[in-house]
């Protein structure tokens, strides 16, 4: 059941993500307004199409369909010019609009064929339902396969590489006071755990703990520090170290609401006095040691639940 839901949202996601230019047909067969209806008949017959945009000097001036041709045939007006028989009020779409826009317009207007313009008004393509479906299927196939391959490769690393103890170590150097870089290391750690096949709840717990540790290095350390994560099949170990200034009272630092962050940092929304507590709550175990003038040493352990129905860390 969950899989079904996931697939539906993947398609919905693509409808929003894909631009019209990603799926439209680019080589548009057009007809000039000074062509005769007789010439149009030949064009439609030879190219096996049921209509064409009418273009004069690169600009869209109308659209002509098989229906218009049949009317002209009935009334014996095959020598009339396309320009006099075409529909001039044309519904168009822009190339950079999301595909969902086209889907909505098609269902609202009942038209099945939309000329596509760039923002300067030049005709750059044509879009029918067929193109949308083909485009979606193409993209769906590519993304699903890419996801699958990437996940398979990464998640089997521990099975493919045999040793007495295989571990994967990720190291990140975090600079002091580098607020714009804040969150970069923890985002990467979270993504790495997901890629290795860890369940999302576990990836999130480790990600949040790593973020708080990363921000502590940025806010409080003298010269930055190192964030190290070691992944083994049944556990993730995080070690965060810096060379000062150190925490005077570790117990006080662990109490909720206690913070030594200066006002300018608090104004950015840090220094709530929750950081170390958040790490402790996310981890299965945490140890904090610090010596003033020497540095701080923070360790956290996260158990990885067994693949089939583990109780820790929630459902996959």
């Amino acid at each position, binding site marked *: 059941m969950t899989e079904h839901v996931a697939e539906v*949202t993947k398609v919905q996601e693509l409808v929003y993500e894909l631009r019209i230019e990603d799926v439209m047909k680019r080589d548009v067969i057009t007809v000039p307004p000074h062509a005769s209806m007789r010439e149009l008949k030949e064009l439609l017959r030879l190219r096996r199409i049921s209509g064409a945009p009418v273009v004069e000097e690169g600009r869209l001036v109308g659209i002509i369909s098989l229906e218009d041709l049949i009317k002209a045939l009935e009334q014996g007006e095959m020598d009339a010019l396309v320009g006099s028989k075409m529909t001039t009020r044309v519904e168009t779409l822009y190339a950079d609009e999301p595909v969902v826009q086209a889907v909505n317009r098609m269902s609202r207007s009942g038209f099945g064929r939309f000329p596509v313009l760039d923002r300067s008004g030049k005709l750059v393509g044509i879009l029918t339902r067929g193109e949308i479906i083909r485009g979606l299927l193409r993209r769906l196939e590519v993304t699903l396969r890419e996801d699958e391959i990437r996940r398979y490769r990464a998640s089997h690393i521990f099975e493919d590489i045999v040793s007495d103890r295989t571990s994967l170590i990720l190291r990140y150097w975090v600079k002091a006071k580098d607020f714009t870089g804040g*969150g970069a290391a923890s*985002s990467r750690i*979270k993504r790495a755990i997901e890629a290795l096949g860890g369940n999302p709840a576990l990836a*999130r717990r480790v990600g*949040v703990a790593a973020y*708080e540790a990363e921000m502590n290095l940025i806010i409080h350390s003298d010269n930055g520090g190192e964030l190290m994560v070691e992944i083994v099949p049944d556990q993730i170990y995080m070690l965060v170290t810096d060379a000062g200034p150190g925490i005077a009272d570790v117990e006080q630092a662990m109490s909720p609401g206690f913070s030594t962050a200066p006002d300018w940092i608090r104004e950015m*929304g*840090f220094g*709530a006095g929750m950081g170390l507590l958040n790490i402790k709550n996310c981890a299965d175990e945490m140890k904090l040691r610090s010596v003033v003038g020497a540095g701080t040493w923070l360790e956290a352990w996260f158990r990885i639940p067994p693949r089939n129905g583990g109780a820790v860390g929630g459902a996959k």
Partner: protein
Amino acid sequence: MTVEEVVALLGLRVLAGRDLWRMVTGGYVSDMLSCVMAKAKEGNIWVTLQAHQNVIAVGSLLNLAAIIISEGVEPDHDTIARAQDQGVMVLSSLNSSFTVAGQLYEAGIRGAQPDVAVSAG
């Protein structure tokens, strides 16, 4: 309710992200990032006055459905670029966080029940 419906109902401006289809699982309001880290849940919508790059990191780590920046505060270009890059939905409201929370509540979006009491320090 999807993010798209929230955008339409509250008249929000979309500053970054394309995940308008996502379902909103609840709401959370705070300007303290660690509180958000501790309390906001996956798929929540987060209302804040903060508009710097770390807001995006929080949204990405927690996999939030969207962030609403209140009082029309404009994030800088780098923040928007980071949101686009990490696929985080950033919305903007001219209203205060209080009013936005009220509008979300009226729309049927709820916050989580309190679990642990935290003494303010």
